[in-house]
């Protein structure tokens, strides 16, 4: 085609190269760690908190692997707010169920009508609470200090299919997109006279005409997104070109393996009874 040469000739300014802001280092030392290192730390912390059990172990673990990095990353305030919001529904219900309905508990702390809070239930409820907060804190810290795009690029560099990174990233991004869509549909339904305030029954009735459009709209969007990705060559076999990749070091690699080895040792210790 006659114009192809003109199209492929770099136009004025095309020699500007990859701009500085692509893959710009994060604002703190913790942000600047390789995404896989942060993902490993989050995963090991979450699993270890469950395997450790008790109260002291998970609290020390959370302090070392979540609170300290959050202070270094200057995201402690946002971490606490987000992690609590994320964990609150399940944490409250798990706490109450264990506090009042712990099987075989005998030490009564409080009677509220037909239900009884027990000391054994309180102890177990606190253990569950700490585990939930540890998981929520570890995951939140990762997402507050890592751009999803960085993780996708890093995994790709290591030979992981871009589809894996894309699915993981898209799943995370789907949540705020659905929340935004739900807010828009709620506003539209309210503008047409739907009552979403008042008694719980009214609120529940108000949810029904919102859920359908949110889910159907999301399904339609998935089809459009799939088409757009296909049209942009995403399904082409072979390696993609990468503009940049997050830095990694031998020390970080060693730290990742050490974390995984420590987790394995902990699990083996718990299963065999060495770690009581």
């Amino acid at each position, binding site marked *: *085609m*006659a*114009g*192809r040469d*003109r*199209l*492929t000739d*770099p*136009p*004025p*300014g*095309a*020699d*500007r*190269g*990859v*701009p500085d*802001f*692509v893959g710009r280092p994060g604002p703190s030392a913790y942000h600047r760690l390789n995404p896989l290192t942060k993902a490993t730390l989050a995963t090991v912390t979450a699993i270890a908190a469950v395997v450790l059990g008790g109260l002291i172990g998970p609290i020390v673990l959370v302090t070392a692997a979540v609170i300290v990095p959050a202070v270094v990353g200057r995201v402690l305030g946002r971490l606490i707010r987000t992690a609590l919001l994320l964990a609150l529904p399940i944490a409250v219900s798990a706490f109450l169920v264990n506090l009042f309905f712990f099987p075989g508990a005998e030490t009564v702390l409080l009677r509220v009508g037909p239900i009884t809070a027990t000391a054994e239930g309180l102890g177990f409820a606190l253990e569950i609470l700490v585990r939930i907060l540890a998981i929520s804190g570890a995951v939140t810290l990762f997402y507050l200090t890592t*751009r*999803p*795009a*960085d993780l*996708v690029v890093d995994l790709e560099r290591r030979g992981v299919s*871009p589809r894996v*990174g*894309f699915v993981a*990233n*898209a799943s995370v*991004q789907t949540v705020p997109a659905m929340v935004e869509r739900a807010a828009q549909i709620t506003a539209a339904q309210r503008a047409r006279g739907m009552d979403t305030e008042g008694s719980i029954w009214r609120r529940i009735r108000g949810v029904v005409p919102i859920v359908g459009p949110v889910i159907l709209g999301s399904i339609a*969007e998935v*089809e*459009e*997104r*799939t*088409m*757009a*990705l*296909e*049209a*942009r*060559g*995403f*399904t*082409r*076999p*072979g*390696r*993609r*070109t*990468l*503009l940049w990749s997050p830095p990694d070091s031998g020390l970080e690699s060693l730290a990742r393996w050490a974390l995984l080895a420590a987790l394995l040792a902990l699990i083996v210790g718990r299963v065999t009874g060495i770690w009581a």
Partner: protein
Amino acid sequence: MTISLEGVGYRYAGATRPSLLEIDLDLADGVVIGLAGPSEAGKTTLCLVASGLAPRTVGGQIRGRITLDGEDIDAWPMHRLSQRIGIGFQNPSTQLSQVAATVFEEVAFGPMNLGVARDEVVARTWAALDSLGIDGLAERDPQRLSGGPQQLVAIAGLLAMRPEHLVLDEPTAQLDPAGTRLVAEAIARLAADGASILVAEQKTDLLAEVASTVIVLAEGRIALRGPASQVLADPRLVELGVAEPAAIRLRRAAVAAGVDDDRLKGALRG
């Protein structure tokens, strides 16, 4: 290089009747074909069929023959077609990759997928951003842009893939007049550089400006076809549910008010 559709019909999966019937179309180098028609006329479906997404990704049944430079593309996978035919959609937010932290990376996404050399990816990305006048957005998060700029980013992403053929389904649906002008200029420039473009649009003013040929669809069939100046001035256009370009409306109104048509033409030319 030409995309040819010969006697093409298409029916979506589960649909009782076809959405396209007996479509014949040749899209050659440097030609811009405008596609008009009322809602549900089959414009989007024709875009999907011409780009190869239907039935490859969308499903459904297709009839007739589609060729690219004389070669039947029936067995071509989508990633092979995507290197030759680019398609842009109405909704900009669903065209974003969701894995790009900046507009620059978003626009580079397509050529990166194609495995284009890194320096070439960078050159193409800057060129695409420059051509739409959005290089100032390069650092922004594409997800946080409003509809108009997002659509321009999506179109820049297509341009960076350097397809020989471009299919645009209502690319200016969410753009303001300034954004629409940028897209019109980009279409004209690409056509001048030899790309062939099929653009479905409700804005017939845009078609009058960029298209050499206009096709009007009605109920999945071609109802009108011809040079843009003739089709867009055809009195049947309004009957088919398509708004005339403002210049044609103005001329009709002036003639109806008793202004001499020849003098008006002279004044408009002047």
